[in-house]
């Protein structure tokens, strides 16, 4: 039991150790990997994933899942990208993206809570719909020629550190405090932990699930903007398959797929790991297509380990319960 607690307690630490090991091992094979420049690069490349992972963590905490993030990312990036290309203001473009993400998240949330569609199916459908809407809206063309001012956002730096990076890291820390220390923030994890118990103490479970999907949608839209700014153009396949990477990142960072456990900080570290694996493969001279297979494998390994731990704990608790009922002769004497 005590091992389980220490595991549960140190899920984030476990992730950090994994990250350090990854850098050490790849660094031994190829010392170029652990240069300051490369590490900074790794963090910069992972910003997108961090934002997505932070958003999806809300949904995962409530015990649901959101796989529409890739679609939301592509659609909101394309729509606000075209708006920017046609001379729109950056502020409005950001607003448009956020509205798109929020609305899709709202639809996801209402579908899951009101229509009781399983979140997997609901968001899978939404993923495909968003992709098609994106193709229709852009006429199947890439969105290019984004204004320079917009592209420079991702290049600017404060005190030698990437500005976006600073903003994202501060935001993640703030969200972490909200989820851990505020009364309402803790409701998200409570819902995934014990839904019946949450209902009993008066948490509006459905409303908070909708909130979670909306937050995830907005984060995906923001990630879309980061994507557009960093890459400079938006293809019709922008962010394809990214949901897999992001879910893997969250789980790798200690977020439980059955809900109730996890933190945004953990998920962010997981996101850094996932994007570092990508570049590590390059340094190890492994063909890039191995990336997906590796993230899939990691995901399965972690989830299986989690399920096994939980199942063992449940079995043990059940056994204890049954055996406590049995009359014991020594007791009565």
């Amino acid at each position, binding site marked *: 039991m005590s091992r389980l607690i220490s595991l549960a307690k140190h899920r984030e630490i476990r992730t950090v150790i994994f990250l350090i090991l990854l850098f050490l091992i790849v660094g031994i094979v190829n010392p170029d990997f652990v240069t300051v420049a490369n590490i900074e690069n790794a963090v910069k490349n992972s910003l997108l994933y961090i934002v997505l992972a932070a958003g999806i963590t809300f949904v995962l905490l409530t015990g649901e899942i959101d796989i529409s993030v890739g679609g939301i990312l592509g659609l909101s990036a394309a729509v606000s990208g075209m708006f920017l290309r046609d001379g729109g203001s950056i502020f409005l473009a950001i607003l448009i993206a956020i509205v798109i993400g929020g609305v899709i998240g709202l639809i996801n949330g209402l579908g899951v809570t009101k229509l009781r569609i399983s979140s997997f199916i609901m968001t899978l459908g939404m993923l495909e719909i968003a992709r098609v809407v994106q193709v229709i809206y852009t006429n199947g063309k890439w969105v290019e020629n984004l204004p320079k001012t917009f592209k420079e956002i991702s290049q600017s730096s404060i005190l030698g550190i990437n500005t976006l990076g600073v903003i994202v890291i501060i935001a993640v820390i703030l969200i972490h405090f909200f989820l851990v220390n505020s009364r309402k923030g803790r409701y998200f*994890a409570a819902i995934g*932990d014990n839904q019946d*118990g949450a209902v009993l103490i008066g948490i509006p479970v459905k409303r908070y699930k909708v909130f979670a999907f909306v937050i995830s949608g907005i984060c995906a839209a923001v990630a879309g903007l980061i994507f557009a700014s960093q890459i400079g153009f938006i293809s019709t396949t922008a962010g394809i398959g990214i949901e897999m990477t992001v879910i893997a990142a969250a789980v790798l960072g200690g977020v*439980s797929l059955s809900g109730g456990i996890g933190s945004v900080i953990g998920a962010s570290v997981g996101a850094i790991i996932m994007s570092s694996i990508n570049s590590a493969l390059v340094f190890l001279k492994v063909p890039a297509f191995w990336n997906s297979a590796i993230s899939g494998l990691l995901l399965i390994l972690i989830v299986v380990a989690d399920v096994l731990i939980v199942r063992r704990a449940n079995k043990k608790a059940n056994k204890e*319960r049954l055996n406590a*009922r049995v*009359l014991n002769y020594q007791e009565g004497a």
Partner: protein
Amino acid sequence: MGETKRLVKLDHIQKTFNQNKVLKGVSLEINQSEVISIIGGNGAGKSTLMKILTGVYKADEGSIEINGDKLTNYNPSIAHDKGIYLVPQEPLLFPNMTIEQNLTIGFHKKKQEVREAAKKLIEQLGWNFDLSRYAISLSIAEQQQVEIIKGLLRDSKVLILDEPTSSLTFAETESLFKLIEQLKNAGVGIIYITHRLDEVFQISTHAVILRDGKVTLKGKINEFTKEMLIQGLLPMDSEKDGSHSYEKCSVDRMKEEKILRVQDLCGDGFKNISFDVFKGEVVGVAGLLGAGRTEIAEAIYGITQVKSGKVILNGKDITHFRVKETIESGIAYIPEDRFLNGIFSISSISSNMTAQVIKKQKYFIDKQFEKKITDEYVSRLSIKIGSQDDEIRSLSGGNQQKVVIARILSMNPQLIIMDEPTRGIDAAARSDIYNIITQLKEQGYSILLISSDLEEIERISDRIYVIYRGTCNVCLDLEEINATNVMRAAFGTYKGSENYV
């Protein structure tokens, strides 16, 4: 205790669920510093009454008065505000949160205040809690303690404990009793729901017996004896419908062969269980809910593991057989929850009936064969169906159960284990099932009947083994079977049973 304040008064509470009258006018009062034990068999209405008291259900008739105020629009949050708190039998904590988080969540006070209050309480109670521990790491007893603290933090005036000792060890029970004593002295009124008569005498000031939705016995504990409590739990003679009696037979155990021998079986939830079942008899397994009966049946059938002991069927050791092998050697099991484990609800009647026997078929299913089997059993067990292809869930409960019985009969078993075969089945279908059981017995099948229904088990069993807290020390022979004896044994006070004080 000079002046005691009345905390709660329930007056002539009535409640009906789907034409089933669960509470038939129950009145109950609790004053400060009282510990009222509520005792009652399964389905007596205890939990319904408590759900009405906590505002989860609304009473059809009757009134609730708390601290002298008559309440009309009652609901759980008013109950909380008025200081009525229920500690559920299975704690509902958030496993992945710390104790402190569990205590503070959903509370509208400042976290700091709650923490201070909780710390003070824990100190007062003399418990040793690290508030930063995760709920998942707590034992059941500790979880219960956390639930109690949750109740006390809300300044509860009335604390309802629903079978709190059902999963506690002896030492944990002792510490709970000490707590009850402390709370009582502090003026809290406690409603204590239990099956264990010894505990009633140990801690309560008053006892109330509920049977069949009515209070049959109520008063100060020192006016009662165990014997009187047992009598209060028994059905009145006039209420029994003696219209039907089922033929019983005492098997000549010298001559007949033993079908099943269970020797010293130990597992999770039961210990040292020994019994025999002979050919052509109905053996009842009686006991209260949670006594371990279903666990024993599942161990025999091979669903759960046996720690030690032996199960012998027809002289063959089948102790560690898996389910498939047990079925093949001739045991059939009709589970307790038909909807969960017994039927394939959206499949057709004929598919359900032949679900087991088609295993003996080759790769393709012979439709003709399915139809033949279904026809045979539909007429044999007089199952009322529209068409063989109807979904089984379109049938009534009684007919569904008959289909399940048909399914296992098609496998031609020697021993049939039936776990609560008439739960949720109306009276007419119930006597049909009893007739079927009696017929099966005459045809030479042996039946192990697990039931919480006192009347049922008394009426159709030839012999009864009574399980009490996971042990089996009482075997009632044909001439010893009567409601009083079964009840006594189920509550652990039968003269032959091991005394537990």
